[in-house]
């Protein structure tokens, strides 16, 4: 009922004023960035006991705040469930949605969103109990599977089982928390979501070592931040915030090496840090926009390692998310 009330409130909001085309001005006037975040997913968006948020998507919103407001802490994180997230962005409740959201054509068009890039290349997997003695997702014929609603996961699951000519019993929950709890209680044989989230959720189970993640990855899940249609300037700022974080890693500019970079004579680095050209001003920001991002948040690699990689409890390999120069597919257009 709470969810329903939220939706009604958001619908009223759409009817009342709708999305402003001047997001940059609105954010600056407000002095704070409203960021739609996950709130329950370790590694992507999760507040700790003190209310301090961490995660890759959280870092991304902080980077926007650093670029626009010169203070990475000036972000208000709005925790959103998978099913309510698009309505919250459409209605203007949040300025940007950074909530491990899969980029699909229908979301990019008919839902009125613009995806600004991919900050994590993911795929959907399955988690099962060891005692089931299942080694492949193809052995799950007839299984009951817990899933979170309002996700591409829910759709891929039906596709995969239909394509493999297998039966399934889906049990759908409004939030990931409820789905995982039901799986843990034995309501389902398997829990399915993006592989990165499976690793995070497994850590929260009563006995993580009793559960395995099956090798099959059944879908492409390019996760990325999104903004509303109709504000090209804001779209550019959010898009280039992500590109700047990736470009910085490629140029070996990190929060630790920033001082050297500022003195560098390498033209690519000079353009990045704003000692040459006026690329920040073209975006509607200042020359040193990218410097603020790196100084206050760090580059893409730093954010990855700190939140989901070796520096975190999740210990996820970079895999596809390595830079294109290192065998992955993370690639950003140049700043010039």
């Amino acid at each position, binding site marked *: *009922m709470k969810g329903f009330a939220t939706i009604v409130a958001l*619908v009223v909001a759409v009817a*009342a004023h709708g999305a402003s085309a001047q997001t940059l001005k609105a954010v600056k006037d407000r002095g704070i960035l409203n960021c739609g975040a996950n709130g329950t997913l370790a590694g992507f968006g999760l507040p700790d006991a003190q209310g301090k948020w961490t995660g890759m998507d959280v870092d991304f919103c902080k980077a926007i705040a650093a670029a626009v407001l010169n203070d990475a802490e000036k972000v208000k994180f709005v925790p959103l469930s998978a099913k309510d997230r698009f309505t919250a962005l459409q209605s203007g409740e949040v300025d940007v949605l950074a909530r491990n959201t899969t980029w699909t054509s229908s979301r990019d*068009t008919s839902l009125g969103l613009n995806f600004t890039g991919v900050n994590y290349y993911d795929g959907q997997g399955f988690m099962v109990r060891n005692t089931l003695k299942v080694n492949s997702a193809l052995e799950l014929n*007839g299984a009951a599977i817990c899933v979170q*609603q309002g996700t591409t996961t829910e759709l891929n699951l*039906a596709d995969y089982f239909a394509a493999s000519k297998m039966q399934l*019993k889906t*049990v759908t929950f409004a939030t990931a928390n409820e789905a995982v709890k039901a799986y843990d209680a034995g309501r389902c044989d398997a829990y399915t979501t993006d592989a990165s989230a499976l690793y995070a959720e497994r850590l929260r189970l009563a006995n993580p070592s009793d559960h395995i993640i099956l090798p099959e990855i059944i879908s492409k899940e390019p996760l990325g931040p999104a903004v509303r249609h109709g504000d090209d300037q804001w779209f550019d700022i959010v898009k280039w915030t992500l590109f700047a974080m990736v470009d910085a890693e490629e140029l070996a500019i990190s929060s630790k090496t920033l001082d050297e970079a500022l003195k560098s004579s390498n033209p690519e680095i000079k353009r990045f840090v704003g000692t040459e050209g006026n690329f920040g001003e073209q975006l509607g920001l200042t020359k040193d926009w990218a410097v603020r991002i790196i100084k206050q948040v760090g580059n893409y690699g730093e954010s990855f390692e700190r939140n989901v990689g070796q520096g975190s409890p999740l210990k996820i390999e970079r895999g596809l998310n390595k830079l294109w120069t290192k065998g992955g597919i993370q690639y950003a257009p140049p700043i010039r």
Partner: protein
Amino acid sequence: MSSEISASSRSAQVVFYNDPKFRSIAYQVALCAIVGFLTYGAARNAIDNLARAHIASGFGFWNDTAGFDISQTLIEYSARGSTYGRAFWVGLLNTLLVAGLGIIFATILGFVIGISRLSGNWLLAKAAGGYVETIRNLPLLLQLLFWYNAVLKALPDMRESIAIGGAFLNNRGLYLPEPIRKDGFGAVEIALLAGIAGALAFYIWARKRQERSGEQAPVLWLALALVVGLPLAVFALTGFPLGFDLPKAGRFNIAGGVEVLPEFAALLFGLSIYTAAFIAEVVRAGILAVSRGQSEAAYSLGLRPGPTLRLIVVPQAMRVIIPPLTSQYLNLTKNSSLAVAIGYPDLVQVFTGTVLNQTGQAVEVVAITMLVYLVISLTTSLLMNIYNRRIALTER
């Protein structure tokens, strides 16, 4: 209109805008115009905003492939072969199923507890009082989560199912043998219908005769014989034309038979038990509203407590009970949307949950859902009002 003006001009010589009748109408017209304008403005604004943000609008999504699975479907439904429209009907039927059964159970339980609370038996009255005070003072959502987790935790794993006859019970649900009709079962169904019709006819005839002559007839026994005995006899004569599809344990799940999901059971339990506490109070209030003199008069006529309650007190109490009882039925129906918390695929979960998210058409989907709840509630109200009018005190 012309008669009003002529009437007012005749009664007093005031200017038309000082005429109270004109004023009251004018104010109402002005208010309606403002409300209408605001509604129009909001709708116009929403349409403009949606168009500007290039968000799809309209009801075209209704015939698009749904692509997601639903755990409980009363009608044929498949992720790949069904549309969003079909998903809507699945959700609606699930809502109606749980609300309908919930109303029946809550009414029975509520009447029993309400009457128990007034019983002369100290233990029974206190137990009923304790039930009402505990249940109606705890939030329903909490109770639903309790029942859901209690159901899941208390029941054994799939592989250690409790088997009773052909049925299985585990934390995936209750699996019952599904009756399959064989040739000749139609005769049993016809016998059942004939039995019901016969019992009704006999009941009407017996009542008329009692009004005329005061003679009583054994209605209950004859009705039982007609409704139960006749079909059973035909069933035996035709050689028991009924088979059963027994549930069988597979590797992961139990296949075949009829399946009762734990989500459904928990929701039905929670809603019935919660609403019953309120109905019990409504019933108690209704009975207390009937003056004691009524039962005293009945006793002095020689009626025993049972018939006194059934023939004197309850019919009079019903007049007080029905209006608040209607509100409880409406509450139960609306509360069924809390299903979303425990994964039962009701209308809100399926339609304003998944369908809204996949299509992004919040305005249309929410409008349809509100309309549906309005229709369900108004229909319930209407039926209860018809019943209320029938039992209302007829004044002569």
